[in-house]
Structures are given as C-alpha cells and as structure tokens.
C-alpha cells in the first residue's frame, strides 16, 4: 500500500453539532458537538454505556439521529448518506466477517457493495492482505482464523473502498497483547499516511498512543476534549504518588498540605508536579512499603472524571 491519504478537499471530515440520540425515554447521546480535521486521529473515550458506539453509529449512517446536525465530508448525513457511506470504512465492535466465505472472498464480496470492479477489487484485496500479514491465509475459512487475524481482516475489509475516514469501534478489545500491538502498528502506519481516523476505546494506552485529539464522554455528554498530553497535564499534573493502605497520620499530613489528592479508602492518590521531595518525605516518615511515584497517565484523567464505581 503505497498511497497516502492527504484528503484536504474538505475543511472538516466530521462536524457534529448538538448531536442527540434518544431511545424512547433514554437519552444515549445528549447534544454533543465535535469536529474531526483531515488526517487526524480522533478518539471517543468513555465507560461502558457512555454513548460511544451510539455516536459513531450515527456518523456512519447506521442509526438515524434524533436531533442536531451532522456533516461528514461537508455533506449532510440525512440527505447524502449514500455518498458518505461510500467514502467511509467501518470496523464494527462485533465480528461481522462473513463465515460463509473465504478470507479473500470476504474482501471481494465486500468490494461489490461499493461497486468496485472485480479486477480492481482483487488487486486491492491482495494489497490489503499483504499489508495485514494475511496473504498466506487467503483461501482459509473465517472460522479457521485466530482472534487477531479476524480483527486484521475486519480492518482490511474496512479499507477495501480506500476510505477518506476510517471508523473503529473498540478495535483491539479482546485481543492478546501481541495482536493488539500488531493492530496498533498498522493503524500507526495508516495515520502516518494521513488517514483520518475516528476511534472509540476504553484502553487508555491505545488512546494515548494513537489519538491526536480525544473527547471523554459519559452519560451522553462530553466531559473534556483535548490532546492526550494536555488533558493529563491539566487534570492530573505530571506525577502521581500512590499510597496503599495509608495510615491515619499520613492522611492528616496530606490533608494539612495544600495538595490535590483522592482518598479511595485503601489507596490514596496525590496528583502533583516535581515533588520528589514530597515522595521522599512520605516514604521516610509514613510508609516504607506500598508507596510509589509514577508518571500521570490518561487513565488517571479518565477515572478522575468518570468516577470509579462500576458501570452497567
């Protein structure tokens, strides 16, 4: 795959304004607005049931929206859904590969839905199978593939129409670490070539690594939006001191200082910047074990904003 995806024919790939989805009396997406720029990898993060999948389903024309405006490639999704869908590649959360067909046939049959002529489809399918390291399995039945291979095939299928926007709904959920890294590498390649990507995930590592910009949503609302590193710096700071089983003295000490912290009962988290001295003092005076200082991550931001209680 040699082509690059420098599609700057439209100012915004996706432009959602006040996007709303209601199911009877339940509001799954509650008037969110966001923009995706060409060549950008944009992430939608959120706990289960936050409205991630509902949002992207509206973007690829699967779910009709209840309210708001949604433009993809500058076209209105309500009117120009067919043109929009023709220029999007979608990797759905549930495996929707065709088990009645071989690996190669999955790509060729899918190409027909886009009216791609047979010869072009065959060439493109072969390129994609090579890109995703599946060329040796092209005659295999889908059921013979491993989980990682299936996911790569779904990705290959999503690229068969040479899309201007790739939409990925939790692309690495359920994969082993090796397969996950392989998927990330391929997505990184596509990103470098200028492919615009919209992805949902609840792997914070995935989001930090892949996304140029992201939103964290919960209960159908956008909580924050920004670059991963900016969000970490703004909401958490640079470092986190984590203390397991904090003593009462330590609690009082932390309370007496002007610190931003979270008390989780069995664990105390202090969000700070350049406080090696504080860490030293805590380990020296209060606890010799069960205390560590680490870099702040997107996961800290996520948990701080969406809370720690279980969902569903």
């Amino acid at each position, binding site marked *: 795959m040699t082509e690059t995806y420098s599609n700057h024919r439209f100012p915004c790939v996706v432009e959602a304004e006040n996007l709303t989805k209601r*199911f009877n009396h339940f509001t799954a997406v509650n008037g969110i607005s966001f923009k995706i720029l060409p060549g950008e990898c944009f992430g939608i993060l959120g706990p289960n049931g936050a409205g991630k999948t509902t949002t992207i389903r509206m973007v*690829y024309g*699967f*779910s*009709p929206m209840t309210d708001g405006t949604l433009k993809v490639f500058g076209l209105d999704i309500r009117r120009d859904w*067919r*043109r929009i*869908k*023709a220029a*999007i590649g*979608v990797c*759905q959360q*549930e*495996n*929707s*590969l*065709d*088990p*009645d*067909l071989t690996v190669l*046939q999955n790509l060729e*049959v*899918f190409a*027909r*839905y*886009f*009216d791609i002529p047979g010869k072009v489809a065959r060439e493109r399918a072969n390129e994609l199978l090579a890109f995703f390291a599946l060329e040796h399995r092209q005659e295999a039945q889908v059921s013979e593939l491993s989980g990682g291979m299936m996911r790569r095939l779904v990705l290959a*299928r999503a690229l068969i*129409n040479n899309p201007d926007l790739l939409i990925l709904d939790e692309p690495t959920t359920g994969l082993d670490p090796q397969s996950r890294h392989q998927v990330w590498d391929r997505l990184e390649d596509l990103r470098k070539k200028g492919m615009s990507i919209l992805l949902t995930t609840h792997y914070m590592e995935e989001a930090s690594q892949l996304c140029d910009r992201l939103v964290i949503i919960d209960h159908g609302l956008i909580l924050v939006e920004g670059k991963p590193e900016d969000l970490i710096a703004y909401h958490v700071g640079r470092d986190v001191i984590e203390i397991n089983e904090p003593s009462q003295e330590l609690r009082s000490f932390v309370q007496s200082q002007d610190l931003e912290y979270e008390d989780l009962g069995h664990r105390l988290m202090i969000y700070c910047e350049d406080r090696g001295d504080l860490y030293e003092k805590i380990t020296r005076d209060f606890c010799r074990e069960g205390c560590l200082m680490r870099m702040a991550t997107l996961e800290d931001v996520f948990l701080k904003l969406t809370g720690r209680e279980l969902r569903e």
Partner: protein
Amino acid sequence: MLKLNLSRRFVRVWQRNLTVYRKSWKISFIPPFLEPFFYLAAFGVGLSGLVGSVRFQGSEISYVQFIAPGLIGMSIMYNAFFETTYASFVRMYYQKTFDAIMATPLSLEEVITGEIIWGATKSLIAATIMLGVISFFGLLRYPSCLLILPLALVGGIAFASIGMFFTGIVVNIEMFNLPVFLFVTPMFLFSGIFFPLENLPPWAQHAALVFPLTHLTILTRSFSVGGHESSLLWSVVYLVFFSLVFFLLALRQMNRRLIK
C-alpha cells in the same frame, strides 16, 4: 409512512448469496432433485392403487399426474420460505451479515429486497430441477408447463416476503416453529396438492383460497395438465397482491427490528 430507499444495489446482496450458493451447489442440488422421486414413489406407486384416478376439470387424470404439479408448488413454497426465515435469521442475528452490509452504501431496504429476491431465486432453481425430473416421467404438458418458471419467481417472492416478515418479528430462531406449524403445514395439507379441494365442505374450500399455496397449486396444475379457466388470472392477481403486501410488511418489520 415508510420511505423506500430502494435502488438496483439490492443485486449486490443477491450476488453475495449466489457466491455462497455456488460453493456448495452440488449439495444444494440434491434435495430438489430427489424430492420428486420420493413423493412420486410414495404417492404414485404406493397410494395411487387406492385412489385410482382423479377428476380434474371435467376429465379423468391419474393420481400421479394430479399431485406432480402440486409438488412443484410445494417446493416453490418451501425453498423461499425456509431461505428467508431460518437462513436469513442466521445471517441477520448470528453472523451479523446485515450489520456489515449496512455500513456500506446499501440501505436496509436493499438488503431485505436482495434476500427476498434470493429466496425467490432458490424457488426458481428448485422448480427448474423438479420440472426436469417430472418431465422425465412424462407427467407434464409442454410448452404450457414452462410457464411454471416465471410463476416460481412470483410465488417465490410471495413466500420469501412472508418468511422475511416472520423473521422481522420472531424473538429467537426456535419461534419459527410457530409459523411453520400454524401456517406452512396447514397449507401443505389443505392447498389442494394431495386431493381436490372440492372434497372439502364449502366453508373450508373458501378458507383454503386465503392460502397463497392454493393459488400456486391451481396455476402449476393448470399449466402442466392443461385446461385453462378464467379463475387463473385471479390466482395470479392474488399472488402478486399477497407478495406486495408482505414485501412492504417485511420491510417495515425489519426496519423496526434493525434500525435503532
């Protein structure tokens, strides 16, 4: 009101099913090929000794000649109905094939139409094979029996549409037992395939006219035995009307089921 997003693109879904069918066509050919042998052996050899001949439109015909065209009608029904019930349900519910296709430039209406036309195509394939086999026994009158082929498409669309309508409402795949037991089986028995409907009490004769298979049987039998009457046109009109109503109902039901 239902807005139809329907274009020629439904052919892509039909092609997808054809691609899958071609992978196993040698096996798929066997049932419609053997079915007439079984039925003709059981009823033709086994039963006709008891029955003798049957009066059909004023003339005496053998019992085998009587049931043979009905068997083609039955096969048209079974092939379309089972394709858009069990097979479509598996593709929709277990294999997520419809979900995948709906992320491409196709609409739900095109997916469903492609499935229904495919079901009718299976009816046509089965009818063609059975026509060949039954002709071999000299039980069909040419060329009028060739009208069964276009009829297989019309009847196929009727049964594929009502099958797809049931696929839109069942909760799980076991629930297809209900329409099979309450709709398909009574039709199989009381549509005039195995005995003339005139043998039934008048109210039952009228009731049987609701069944699309009754009309399909009237048409296949007239096309293969001969003897045309004016009521044939009404049977065609009824089948077309039935198809149209259930095609629209199937689209509406699948729309409710899948568009969220």
